[in-house]
């Protein structure tokens, strides 16, 4: 009986055919599944879920980037706050140390001046200033305890300050050079004409006893002459501000170079110093000579 001669139906032959089809398909599917039957379904599921997996991956990546960005922002913000706190701390520390630094700078400058003047100079601090008052002065923190006596010259690196007016056990009072009752023997740097400096207040002073015959120019330096035995010759006093002809003498107004209102430390000259002192000879530093063809 030919195969195609049989008709499909729920007869015995039909059941046999159904069983045959199931058997053949079952074997085929079983063989097609292979050693790992789940891999086909995994591949199909993977193919179908690829778009959603891509979206999920992008979503996860976006969240990760956002988290990292937020973390970076938070870290940057925390670091900024920390740096701001450190900056504030440094500013406070700098403000606290500013007086000490200024004092150290002043000490360095005084040390330099002390090296230039070969005399036994003593240092003292200004603890109070009464300059705004009439006949006011500067109060030092040292007195007879340091061996100070009246009429000792006082100077700073910018120029002379004045002389000691009175000396107490532990304090001393300075009579500034611009005080009305102060006088300093000075000379003009260019003309070498000598005179007496009398204070006018507010950092200005007047040189007296300069002859009308002298030629004085504004801006000319005024130095100590050493004739008063308070200051040796050659210390800077100030600069000529105005020159006017008088009846018998020139009226020379001088701006004192020492900042009398901003002095914190001063140097004190010994009593009755010599008229003239020679600054110590300082040999210039010799530069190392380079020989030709020799590299250092």
């Amino acid at each position, binding site marked *: 009986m030919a195969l195609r001669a049989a008709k499909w139906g729920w007869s015995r032959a039909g059941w*046999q*055919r159904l069983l045959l089809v199931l*058997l053949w398909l079952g074997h085929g599917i079983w*063989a*097609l*599944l292979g050693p790992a039957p789940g891999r086909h379904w995994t591949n199909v599921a993977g193919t179908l879920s690829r778009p959603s997996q891509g979206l999920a991956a992008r979503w996860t990546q976006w969240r990760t980037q956002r988290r990292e960005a937020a973390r970076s922002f938070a870290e940057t913000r925390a670091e900024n706050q920390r740096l701001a706190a450190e900056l504030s701390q440094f500013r406070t520390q700098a403000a606290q140390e500013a007086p000490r630094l200024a004092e150290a700078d002043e000490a360095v400058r005084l040390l330099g001046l002390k090296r230039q003047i070969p005399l036994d100079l003593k240092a003292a601090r200004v603890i109070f200033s009464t300059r705004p008052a009439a006949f006011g002065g500067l109060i030092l923190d040292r007195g007879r305890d340091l061996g100070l006596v009246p009429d000792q010259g006082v100077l700073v690196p910018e120029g002379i300050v004045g002389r000691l007016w009175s000396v107490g056990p532990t304090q001393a009072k300075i009579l500034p050079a611009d005080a009305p009752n102060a006088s300093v023997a000075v000379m003009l740097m260019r003309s070498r004409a000598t005179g007496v400096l009398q204070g006018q207040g507010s950092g200005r002073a007047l040189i007296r006893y300069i002859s009308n015959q002298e030629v004085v120019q504004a801006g000319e330096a005024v130095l100590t002459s050493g004739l008063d035995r308070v200051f040796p010759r050659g210390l800077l006093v100030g600069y000529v501000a105005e020159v006017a002809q008088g009846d018998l003498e020139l009226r020379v107004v001088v701006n004192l170079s020492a900042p009398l209102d901003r002095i914190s430390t001063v140097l004190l000259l010994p009593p009755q110093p010599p008229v003239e002192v020679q600054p110590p000879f300082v040999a210039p530093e010799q530069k190392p000579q380079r020989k030709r063809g020799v590299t250092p």
Partner: protein
Amino acid sequence: MRIPAPSALRQHLLCAIALGLVFLCAPFPRLQAVVHVALVLALAPRAGSPLGSALWAAAGGWALEGTLRLYPHLGGTAWADMTMVLLAGWMAGRWPLEGFKGWLSRLAGLVVAHTLLAHLAVRLAAGPHAWGPGWFWSLLSLPLWGWAAWRALYAGASPRRG
């Protein structure tokens, strides 16, 4: 002149004997391959009885793969055997045998197709594998087992008639 089909009892007995030989020839893979091909392509196909043929072929395939114990996933040879036995049975009904030469020619074509299909199915089921020389021995010994199957199936009918 058409050759009458063998009786179902004789065919089932021969299939049973061949299946037993498949098991017994397990230590000799080349001989087992020849017996297996003979069972699937020569003894099991029967026009009008595809279920029985498929069952014998599936049994032969499972017996071969089970005794070989080489593949990680069995079933490919059984499916190829079922497919080829259904094809052979359909050919037997569509083009009834008329002689021994036609029988051998049909078997040769079926052996080649069975070899290709079996290895394809095994590759799908178990992955890449070595083909082995079984197909070669089956094709080489085709006249021998073809003649034996002809004589066993169609007893009384001399091959000379073809």
